[in-house]
C-alpha cells in the first residue's frame, strides 16, 4: 500500500528491551535511516519507514498494550532513501559473521508474529552445531494468507534468503515446509532456480504447525526439549517473510521497514494482502480496504487463534503484525462445568491436559500446575476453540503461567539473598 501521511514507529516491537532513540524532534530522516539503536541481545534496531520530519519522540498507542516510546514522522512523500544503504555485491561470498552483522543492523526480527530478533537465531551457541535450516511456509494461523502471497511472489528471494541463513549458521540442509493447501507455493518454489539446494516438503494442513516446535517435529521427528530452543536439536527456523527480509537486507541493503500482512474478517469490506510500512496506523490500512462495516466491534492484530484484540484503530503496524482482522464480536457464551470430554487433551499440540491445568490454576495449586507442564503451553488456543463447555482455558492457563513465573522469579531472588 502507499505509505501513509504519518507513521508512528514504536522503539520496542517484541518482548525484550526497547531500542535507544537516535533522533530528536524536528530532525529530517531518510527512508530506511536507523532511528533506534538496539540495546542488548534481545533488542532490535528500528528504522524509519518513510522520509520526512520527526514530529515527536514520545509515548504512543502500542498494539501490545505496553507504554513504549514511539517516533512519529510526517511523511514528505518522496521516499528519499538513506544514502548509506548499499547491498553486498557478492551476497553468497560473505562470511557468516558478516551476514549476521547485516541482519542485525537491518533490524530484522521473525516475521511470523513473535518478532524474535533474527540475528540471535543466526548465532547459535558454539556447543550446539546446527545441521538443518527450516524455512517456515506454514502460515502461523488460519485466515492469514500473507506468507502464502509472499511465497508466490517472492519465491526466488526466499530461496536466496534461505541460502544465506544456511551459510550463516553453517548448516548442511535447508528444508522449506509448506502445508498441502498451498500447492501453488510448492510449485512456485520448484519453478524458480534458487542459489541453493533447498528441499521443499509438503505437509498436511494442520494448525498450529507454524509453531516452531511442532514444525520441527513434523519435518524431522525431533523434539525440542522442554524449555529449550530449536538450537538444542540442531535446527534454526525462519519464517518465509524473514528469509525474504534477510535477502533484501544483504543484497540491497534494505532494512526492515515494511512487511506483508493480511487484512481480513467479516467486518472488512474489501479484504486484501498488503505490503505495509511499519508505523502505519491500523485505520489507514483499514481505509484502504474499504473501511470496516458498521457492526464491527472486534479488531485483532495477528491471527484469529492467538491475535491480540485492540482497543483503538489508531495503533500502528509493527514488525510483528502478521494480520489485521475485524468482525462483530460474538456475545460470550455461557460457561458450563467441565464434562471431562477430553477434547482439549486430544487436541493439545504439546500433549498437555488443559482442563487439569485450568483446575489447578483456579484452585491455586500452582506447583502442581508447573509439574503438569503449564509453562510448556504455547497458547495456540486449540483447547479453548474445541471446548464444548466453553471454558476460557487459555485465559486460565495464561494467568497460571504468569503466577508460576512470578513465583519462580521471587524464589530466585530469595535464593540469591
Amino acid at each position, binding site marked *: 500500500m502507499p505509505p501513509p501521511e504519518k507513521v508512528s514507529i514504536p522503539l520496542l516491537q517484541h518482548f525484550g528491551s526497547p531500542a535507544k532513540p537516535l533522533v530528536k524532534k524536528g530532525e529530517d530522516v531518510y527512508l530506511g535511516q536507523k532511528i533506534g539503536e538496539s540495546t542488548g541481545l534481545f533488542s532490535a534496531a528500528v528504522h524509519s519507514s518513510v522520509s520526512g520530519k520527526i514530529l515527536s519522540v514520545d509515548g504512543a498507542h502500542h498494539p501490545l498494550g505496553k507504554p513504549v516510546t514511539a517516533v512519529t514522522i510526517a511523511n514528505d512523500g518522496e521516499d528519499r532513501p538513506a544514502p548509506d544503504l548499499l547491498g553486498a555485491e557478492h551476497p553468497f561470498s560473505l562470511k557468516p559473521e558478516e551476514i549476521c552483522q547485516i541482519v542485525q543492523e537491518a533490524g530484522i526480527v521473525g516475521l511470523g508474529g513473535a518478532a524474535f530478533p533474527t540475528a540471535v537465531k543466526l548465532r547459535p551457541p558454539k556447543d550446539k552445531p546446527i545441521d538443518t535450516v527450516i524455512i517456515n511456509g506454514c502460515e502461523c494461523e*488460519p485466515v492469514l494468507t500473507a506468507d502464502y502471497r509472499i511465497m508466490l511472489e517472492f519465491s526466488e528471494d526466499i530461496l536466496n534468503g534461505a541460502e544465506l541463513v544456511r551459510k550463516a549458521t553453517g548448516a548442511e540442509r535447508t528444508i522449506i515446509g509448506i502445508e498441502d493447501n498451498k500447492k501453488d507455493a510448492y510449485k512456485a518454489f520448484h519453478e524458480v532456480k534458487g542459489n541453493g539446494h533447498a528441499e521443499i516438503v509438503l505437509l498436511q494442513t494442520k494448525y498450529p504447525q507454524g509453531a516452531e*516446535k*511442532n514444525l520441527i*517435529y513434523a519435518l524431522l521427528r525431533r*523434539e*525440542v*526439549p*522442554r524449555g*529449550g530452543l530449536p538450537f538444542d536439536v540442531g535446527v534454526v527456523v525462519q519464517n518465509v517473510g524473514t528469509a525474504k527480509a534477510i535477502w533484501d537486507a544483504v543484497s540491497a541493503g534494505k532494512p526492515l521497514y515494511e512487511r506483508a500482512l493480511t487484512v481480513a474478517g467479516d467486518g472488512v469490506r474489501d479484504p486484501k494482502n498488503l505490503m505495509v510500512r511499519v508505523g502505519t496506523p491500523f485505520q489507514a490500512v483499514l481505509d484502504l480496504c474499504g*473501511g*470496516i462495516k458498521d457492526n464491527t*466491534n*472486534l479488531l*485483532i492484530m*495477528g491471527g*484469529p*487463534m*492467538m*491475535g*491480540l*484484540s*485492540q*482497543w*483503538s*484503530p489508531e495503533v500502528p503496524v509493527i514488525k510483528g503484525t502478521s494480520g489485521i*482482522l475485524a468482525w462483530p*464480536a460474538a456475545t*460470550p*457464551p455461557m460457561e*458450563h*462445568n*467441565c*464434562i*471431562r*470430554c*477430553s477434547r482439549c*487433551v*486430544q487436541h493439545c*499440540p*504439546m*500433549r*498437555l*491436559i488443559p*482442563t*487439569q491445568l485450568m483446575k489447578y490454576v483456579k484452585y491455586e495449586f500452582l506447583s502442581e500446575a508447573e*509439574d503438569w*507442564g503449564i509453562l*510448556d503451553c504455547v*497458547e495456540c*488456543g*486449540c483447547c*479453548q476453540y*474445541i*471446548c*464444548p*463447555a*466453553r471454558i*476460557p482455558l*487459555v*485465559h486460565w492457563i495464561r494467568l497460571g503461567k504468569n503466577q508460576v513465573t512470578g513465583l519462580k522469579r521471587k524464589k530466585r531472588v530469595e535464593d540469591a539473598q
Partner: protein
Amino acid sequence: MLNNEYVIQSSPHLKDKDSVRKIMYTVIIALLPAVFASVYFFRLRAVALYLTCLVACLATEALFLWIRKKPIQSLWDGSAAITALLLAMTLPPGLSLDLAVIGSVVAISIGKQVFGGLGHNIFNPALVGRAFLQTAFAEAMTTWVPPVTLHIDTGTFATPLGNLKFQEAIAQGTLTSLKDLFWGNVGGCLGETSAIALFLGVLILLAKKTIDWRIPTGIILSLSIFTGIFWLIKPNQYASPAFHVLAGGLLIGAFFMATDMVTSPITPKGTWIFALGIGIIVGLIRLFGGFAEGVMYAILFMNTFVPLLNRYSRPRILGERRAPS
C-alpha cells in the same frame, strides 16, 4: 467508525460450534434405536418405565437445582434425560413403577447432584440408581418377563446369561442362539437385549466422535480374549466370546455407560486401562462370580479408579525427556 467501542477479549477469537447440550442430545438420539427396539419387544411396559424414569429424574434434577440455587435452564442440558433413559434401559421390564421412581431419585440425587452436578460425579448416575435397586430389591430386580414377541406365558423366565450360569444351558443344549441375541428376541433388561439397535446408535456416536472409540473397543477386546481363553480350553463348559459380547448388558454398557465422559479417564493411556479393566472384570464376574451378569459392577468399579488413572497416565509432553510420572 472512530466512536465505535471495541471489545477487548482474550484469544482465541474463534469458537467451535459444538456445546455440552449438543453432545447430550446426540447421545439421546443415539439411544433412540434401542429405545424403539425395547418398545417393540416389551410394548406398554417399556413405555411406562421410560416415562416414569424421565419424569422422576427431571423432577429430582429440578428440585436440586432449586435447592442449590442453580439456573433452572440446566434442566434442559439433556444430562438428566440421558440418566433417565439409561436407567430405564437397565431395569427388568416387569419392574413396578414405584421402584423405578426410587431408582431415578437415587440416580440423580446420590449419583450426581451430591457431588456438585454434571461434570463432578464420580460414578455413572444411572448405574448408581440401578445398583441401589439391585441391592435393596434384589428379587424384583432379577425377575424377568419374556418379550411379547416370544409368545410365552410363564411366571419364571431366565435371561440368556442366567440360563447359562444357573441352568447348565450348554450341557442341556438350551443356550440362546447368537441370532436371537443379535436381533434382541430374548429376555433381559429393557434396552440391553437388541444388539443391532445398540450398534446403530453407537455408529452415530462414533461418526460424530462424541465418544472415545477406545472404550468400546477395549472392553469388547479384553472380554473376548478373557472368555475366549476359557472357551478354547473347555468349550463344553464355557460360552463363546461372541455369546458373551452379545448377551446381557455388555453392549449397552460398553457403548453408552462406560463412555460417559464425566466418569471415564481423559488421557488416552488411562482410557485403555479403564476399558480393558472393565472387560476383564465382566469376564471374572460372569465366569467365576456369584452373579450371572457383571457389567454394572465392572463399570462402577473402574469408575472409582478414574481419578487415579488420570493422575498416573499423563501423556509425555512434547520434548519431555523423563518418563511420565
